[in-house]
């Protein structure tokens, strides 16, 4: 039984958003008289955690506790337009719209609080715990719920805000391809270590170690969730997945999970990652897009590791055991 090991690296960039057709998203915020804020959207949470990170961004900008911000999304009658959740755009675009809306709402919030506290709005600050206070005089403070009540019943003001993120639509020059399609670039570098059984062609991914740079992490655990799921998907793409096992032929197209091969929990490699933060100039709090990129560096890193282990150069995905054996046979006949 012959087992050989190899190491491979890959470094990638990934663009955030795609504005060749225009790529806007809107957000509306209003304060209720219960002390909470509602962010209205028509954006979609695919499981990546949009409903969570958008509430974080809204709470941060408003200066209020996270658990007083509600996300009302997924309804075209109540939520303003969003292009959708794709192109690693949602946190960046929707987040920007929310920051803008929250700034507008915060301005009224502070003005009403200033009237209540008989102070200048510029001298006020939020404490992040549901109160507004005069800077340097913590005893001069008012609860945000009371500000909301006063705005409605006493001053006749809405505490609300509107936000939109819209990068001007870019065209593509037909002759040179000159274009400005995206808003920033995130980056990743993965080092993969594999073990290959040279008799069966089976590849085991021993470890995936990666460094990611994504601007700013809004929620580090959700970032880790994307990295873990995405790098696993990258491994699955590299070694297992295909709807056309004999591509370009269409024979034996899988119909279910007994035929469409995806690795399971027993295949999960040791995964380690570090996240660097170099805030972007365009994202809310410096955010860059993350979701899609996480699958991209593991794929070539794994393929490079296999090629390193075997001294071959496989260039077709997925790298099935059969392709490994055929590459080894080709190498043997070439020598």
């Amino acid at each position, binding site marked *: 039984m012959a087992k050989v090991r190899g190491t491979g690296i890959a470094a990638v960039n990934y663009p955030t958003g795609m504005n060749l*057709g225009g790529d806007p998203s809107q957000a509306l915020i209003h304060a209720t008289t219960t002390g909470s804020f509602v962010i209205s959207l028509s954006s979609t949470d695919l499981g990546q*955690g949009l*409903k969570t990170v958008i509430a974080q961004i809204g*709470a941060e900008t408003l200066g209020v506790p996270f658990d007083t911000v509600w996300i009302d999304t997924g309804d*075209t009658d109540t939520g303003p337009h969003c292009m959708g959740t794709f192109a690693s755009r949602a946190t960046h675009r929707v987040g920007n719209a929310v920051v803008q809306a929250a700034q507008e709402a915060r301005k009224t919030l502070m003005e009403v609080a200033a009237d209540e506290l008989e102070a200048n709005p510029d001298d006020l600050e939020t404490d992040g715990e549901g109160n507004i206070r005069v800077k340097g005089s913590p005893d001069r403070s008012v609860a945000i719920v009371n500000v909301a009540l006063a705005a409605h019943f006493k001053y006749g003001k809405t505490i609300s805000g509107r936000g939109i993120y819209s990068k001007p639509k870019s065209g593509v020059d037909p002759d040179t391809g000159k274009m*400005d399609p995206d808003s920033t670039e995130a980056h990743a570098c993965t080092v993969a270590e594999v073990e290959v059984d040279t008799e069966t062609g089976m590849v085991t991914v021993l470890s995936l170690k990666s460094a990611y740079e994504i601007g700013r992490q809004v929620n580090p655990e959700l970032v880790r969730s994307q990295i873990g799921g995405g790098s696993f998907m990258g491994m699955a793409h590299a070694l297992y997945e295909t709807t056309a096992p004999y591509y370009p032929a269409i024979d034996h197209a899988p119909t279910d999970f007994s035929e469409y091969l995806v690795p399971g929990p027993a295949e999960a490699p040791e995964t380690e990652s570090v996240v660097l933060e170099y805030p972007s100039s365009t994202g809310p709090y410096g955010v860059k897009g993350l979701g899609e990129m996480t699958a991209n*560096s593991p794929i070539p890193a794994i393929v490079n590791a296999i090629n390193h282990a075997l001294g071959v150069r496989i260039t077709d995905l997925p790298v099935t055991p059969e392709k490994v054996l055929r590459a080894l046979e080709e190498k043997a006949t070439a020598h």
Partner: protein
Amino acid sequence: MTVQDLKVVGQSVLRRDGLGHVTGKTLFVEDRSFPDMLHLKMVRSPLPHARIRSMDFSAAENVPGFVRALTYKDVPKNIYTILCLIGVGPDEEPVLAEDKVLYVDQPIAAVIAETEAAAMEAVSKVRLDLEELPAVLDVEEALEPGAPILKDWGTNYFIYDYEHGQSNKCRKVRLGDVEKGFAEADLIVEGRYQTSPIEHAPSETTICIAKPEADGRLTVYTNTQALYFSLDNTALILEIPFQKLHFVGGTVGGGFGGKVDVITEPIACLAAMKTGRPVKYKFSREEEMRASSSRGAWRMYYKDGVMRDGRIVARQVTSYADAGAYNRHTPYAVTKHAANVAGPYRIPNVRIDAHCVYTNRQPGSAMRGFGVTPASFALEVQMDKIAEAVGLDPWSIRFINAYRDGDMKPHQKVVEDATLIEVMQAAAEMVGHDLPAEFKKMSSRESEEGSDG
């Protein structure tokens, strides 16, 4: 604002939807049910390329619970293309097949019945008379003279730049003079790379429920990734005012790009309008795997001019995206691919020709990494090949060529927010790879040659 000032951003607060998920109380589309709900199932093509001679519904109509069938004649604007919303044309995909089918499992006719089982049984009893036509499955064979032509406009490729009065057979990106670069290069390194079509395989399959309301509108519960995109396309296909539609969603059991197509909503809405009852249209797992769009396959040819010290001075990439039978999002993916396929490297001379090619397979579409995932795979395996050709290690070849802020990308956008060097430095440190001093001190903020350190 510095990190220290942030109170909520940067905190790992628990998921907003977490309690719903762990108790099973999160409401997914199929967890809603309505009295009187009908079920829609699709009659699909068994062949990759065929002319439809006739369809016979007589046996299907006798299945208890059968309500009615829908064919292309029932669809107001049957031929569409999803990216018409952002100016991509022409319309080319039928909601329901008209005179021919271009891929296995292409929808031909919808059957509406009282139960899912009755709908499935009725589907099994629809008799199709098909004349099989030669199929083309390989992207390069599809571009050869004599290949069966799939599109009415006479080519097997998407025509770019018609809006500029041009008809280009590929998306072109040009920087510098690639031939001059090849001539100056010490050696040429070439490579061919192929990826495979891949299924998004979300846990929850594509689904919608269209429900007629008292005020004449339709409420559509859907797991689309893009509510307005789906709403707008549905209204255009049905030729009804946009405001007649109310889309509700936002909670999706996994998307990965597979739920950006507008595939179930138009026909479910049509069925609801024709019957006046709520209609559910849910993909079976087999439909999700074989009929819904996939991550398209890509073939990429690299030709690089390289100096002995490892610098890449010219890069030419010819790419073929296997769009399958219809556009879906592939023409756009090709453009994104063309902008990124040269990679995060400073290369003065670049020529990219990226083709969107039609074949007789299920359409490719958007998937996590949209056009860039195949590019990253090909170019990073090619980088190792170059490293070997010039006798450098895989780290060195990447540091030597890494782009930095201020560099010009092939699509003539100035690089900003670059951190390729930094992630490589961090990864090297993680695995205990001791980089040479010159790479350790490199920075993406220093774009001038030799100015770092």
